[in-house]
């Protein structure tokens, strides 16, 4: 039974935006009980279409044409009151950031009760009772206690469950999920996806799932829509789109999924065993870092062991991936190694220099040996400095004359695939992916012995991510870089790392060559991480489909 029909939807953006229409000529249908995935990168218009469904378009954005029919009834041109009647009751929505999506000053139970209140249902006592039932249904432990919690007291996964409870309260026919798991850990993501699937089956609900992750699509979708700059480029049953994609953009997206490329049949790269033969360039031993927060005049502080007794060796030319979820201590470890944060104890030896023992002056000079590539392309470059200055500040601080440093800067820009004339431009003139390249150039400018990439590709769109990873792999081979690659995404680590170190709550639970860790994981946690990767079971088929054509 067709629930929803969207025909030739156009949504206009306010004047001055980068294009006149956010969404153009979009048409699709949704049937009862089916899962429709809308896939696209940022700026594709996937969220806009969903917002239009709910009548929640932001200010200045208006539908400019087309129709949306729900049960045959036009819902695009309704009065606000009529729209309110539909929202929460027939069509519900959950969003990406559960912390900011919940009112920080209201208890969670009260926020669930509001859904009933908005549609004049049940008595206050009845609403509370239903709220408890709902929290239990979405799997929150101790629902009677959780009712009285404030959002900040819950974890990300728990908050998302609360959002789902709110969305399901009135048993809507359609649930719109706008990137609900993007901000969550991979294991939590798997749980939430499982929860949504269970509830969908139980309530026979249709789900529109918006995401950028094809792995998720592979796991849950019945039908798939692929969007690019506001238009639908491909549409059809999941299997068709995933395994027999026709549009080049779709194929590019699937190929861009990390780990999709065949791992190293490349004869020029040394086999995994060889890396062990080259000299040790970085040696970490017994690294510890504890954070204590809060605690005032009369309160004991909260203590967190971010890094516990970390020890490993990095060989010349090798890339080790430090993989973990949030709270695993991977970022802290990276920052301790280069002493952006001072570790509590332990030693870090870099090319025979003990970094941990250095005083401030000598540390400043020794800094050039270890550099970092940062995560956020929007805050890793000084917005008021030209690229030339960004790339030459470091070398000049180490005594390199200006002319020389500038010449080298131009070389580096060419090396990372950018126009050398960029030295005169400002960061805001570049895209996210280009800024990451500049960040890589900056890291290389000081000729470091070791580079630490701290979630260097996590903030990028999938296709850009693939390009940057290719660049890193290329540079690695050409310059024989030694790298520590910190990431939460095992697939990314698989693509570029020789060895993988899995961290959990500050400790290393497993370490070994990539192929071994991924193929025969020893630790239960590693196994759960691998299982949680969306699209895992379809990976083989998808890889084959992209390779043959």
């Amino acid at each position, binding site marked *: 039974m067709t629930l929803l029909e969207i025909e030739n939807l156009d949504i206009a953006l306010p004047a001055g935006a980068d294009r006149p229409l956010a969404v153009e000529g979009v048409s699709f249908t949704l049937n009862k009980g089916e899962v429709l995935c809308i896939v696209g990168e940022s700026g594709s218009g996937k969220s806009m279409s969903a917002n239009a469904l*709910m009548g*929640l378009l932001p200010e200045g954005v208006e539908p400019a044409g087309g129709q949306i029919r729900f049960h045959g009834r036009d819902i695009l041109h309704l009065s*606000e009151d009529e729209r*309110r*009647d*539909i*929202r*929460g*009751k027939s069509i*519900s*929505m959950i*969003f990406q*950031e559960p912390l*900011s*999506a*919940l*009112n*920080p*000053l*209201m208890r969670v139970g009260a926020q669930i009760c*509001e*859904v009933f*209140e*908005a*549609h004049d249902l049940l008595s206050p006592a009845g609403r509370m009772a239903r709220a408890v039932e709902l929290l239990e249904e979405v799997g929150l432990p101790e629902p009677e206690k959780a009712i009285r919690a*404030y959002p*900040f*007291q819950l974890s990300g996964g728990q908050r998302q469950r609360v*959002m789902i409870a*709110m969305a399901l309260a009135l048993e809507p026919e359609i649930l719109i999920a706008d990137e609900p798991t993007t901000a969550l850990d991979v294991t939590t993501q798997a749980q939430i996806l499982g929860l949504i699937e269970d509830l969908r089956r139980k309530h026979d609900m249709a789900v529109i799932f918006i995401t950028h992750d094809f792995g998720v699509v592979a796991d849950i979708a019945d039908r798939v829509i692929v969007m690019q700059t506001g238009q639908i480029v491909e549409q059809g049953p999941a299997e068709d789109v995933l395994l027999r994609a026709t549009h080049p953009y779709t194929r590019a997206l699937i190929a861009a999924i990390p780990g999709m490329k065949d791992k190293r049949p490349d004869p020029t790269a040394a086999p995994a065993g060889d890396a062990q033969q080259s000299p040790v360039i970085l040696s970490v031993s017994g690294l510890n870092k504890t954070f204590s927060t*809060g605690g*005032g*005049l*009369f*309160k004991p502080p909260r203590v967190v062991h971010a890094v516990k007794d970390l020890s490993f060796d990095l060989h010349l030319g090798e890339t080790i991936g430090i993989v973990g979820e949030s709270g695993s201590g991977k970022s802290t470890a990276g920052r301790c190694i280069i002493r952006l944060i001072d570790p509590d104890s332990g030693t870090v030896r870099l090319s025979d220099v003990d970094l941990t023992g250095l005083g401030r002056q000598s540390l400043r000079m020794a800094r050039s040996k270890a550099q970092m590539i940062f995560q956020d392309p929007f805050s890793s470059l000084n917005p008021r400095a030209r690229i030339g200055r960004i790339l030459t500040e470091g070398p000049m601080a180490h005594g390199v004359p200006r002319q020389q440093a500038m010449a080298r800067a131009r070389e580096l820009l060419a090396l990372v695939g950018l126009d050398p004339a960029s030295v005169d431009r400002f960061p805001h003139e570049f895209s996210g992916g280009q800024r990451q390249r500049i960040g890589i150039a900056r890291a290389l400018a000081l000729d470091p012995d070791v580079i630490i990439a701290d979630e260097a590709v996590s903030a990028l769109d999938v296709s850009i991510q693939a390009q940057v990873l290719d660049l890193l792999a290329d540079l690695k081979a050409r310059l024989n870089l030694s790298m520590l690659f910190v990431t939460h995404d095992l697939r990314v680590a698989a693509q570029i790392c020789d060895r993988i170190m899995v961290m959990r709550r500050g400790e290393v639970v497993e370490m070994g060559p990539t192929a071994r860790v991924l193929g025969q994981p020893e630790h239960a946690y590693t196994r759960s991480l691998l299982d949680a990767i969306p699209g895992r079971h379809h990976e083989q088929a998808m890889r084959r489909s992209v390779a043959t054509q």
Partner: protein
Amino acid sequence: MIRFILARLVKAAVILLAIMIFNFLLIHAAPGDPAAVMAGEAGATDEKFIADLRARFGLDQPFSVQLWLYVKSMVQFDLGFSYRQNMPVADLIWQRLPATLLLTISAFVISLVLGVIAGVLAASKQGTWWDTVISTLALLFYATPLFWVALMASLLFSVVLGWLPGFGYETIGANYTGLARALDIGKHLILPATTLGLFFMAVYMRMTRASMLEMSRLDFVKTARAKGLSNGVIQRRHVLRNALLPVITLAGLQAGQIVGGAVLTETVFAWPGIGRLLFEAISQRDYSVLLGVFFVSAAMVLLFNLITDILYVVVDPRIRLT
């Protein structure tokens, strides 16, 4: 919670102590003999008075002893003696304090209530002429010198129109009692409290408006709309509650300004509070009174900050429960 209040009280006590020391340093940094400074212009002529002061505060003794004696006397609420008024300073201040409290608290309440209401109105009708009028008025009130507005107000409403009394606390010689007296005082209170509150009304209005608009853009408002809640409920329960947090913080920061503004208001309207006392002490060069009022007004500000801090913690669970 109790821990929080205790910690704040300890901090306030430390600041008060620091102010006492500051006062002491000021007396000694002033040009001239510290005894003459403490005695004031009038008292400086009386030899015996000065000798007394010297003995009491040990002005011939080493610095640290003097400091200790000074602090000791202040802690015992001995703020010195006003030669001119022939009363202990503490008594003088105690006499006048209620009037100032009445004035500042009324001004605060008026400014906060009217300011927030105007801000909510302007935010909800953003872009319409309501918004323009309210915002322009706020801009004007924000720029007017307090003493001038007080003068103009008293000129207009008291002299020209004769609607309200323009000076004093109550009608002299009328000898009202009970409710009639309260009403009389109230009538006298209107002009001073409103003019004092005008500037702060503008401050709170602008902050509330900006805060409401900012909160409206946040994700949880979108969630509330997605649930099907009506706009009124969303504004009240979701936006306003969150928007008031920075307003409360601001109110705390404005405490010092309102107490300072009371000086000007009381002077213009001849309101018998400690602000007016301060003004009189300036012309009489009565430094004991000056420093005494300074200290008490600082204590008032501290108390007020404590109240707003507690209020903030009550409203925002994130501070309370972490």
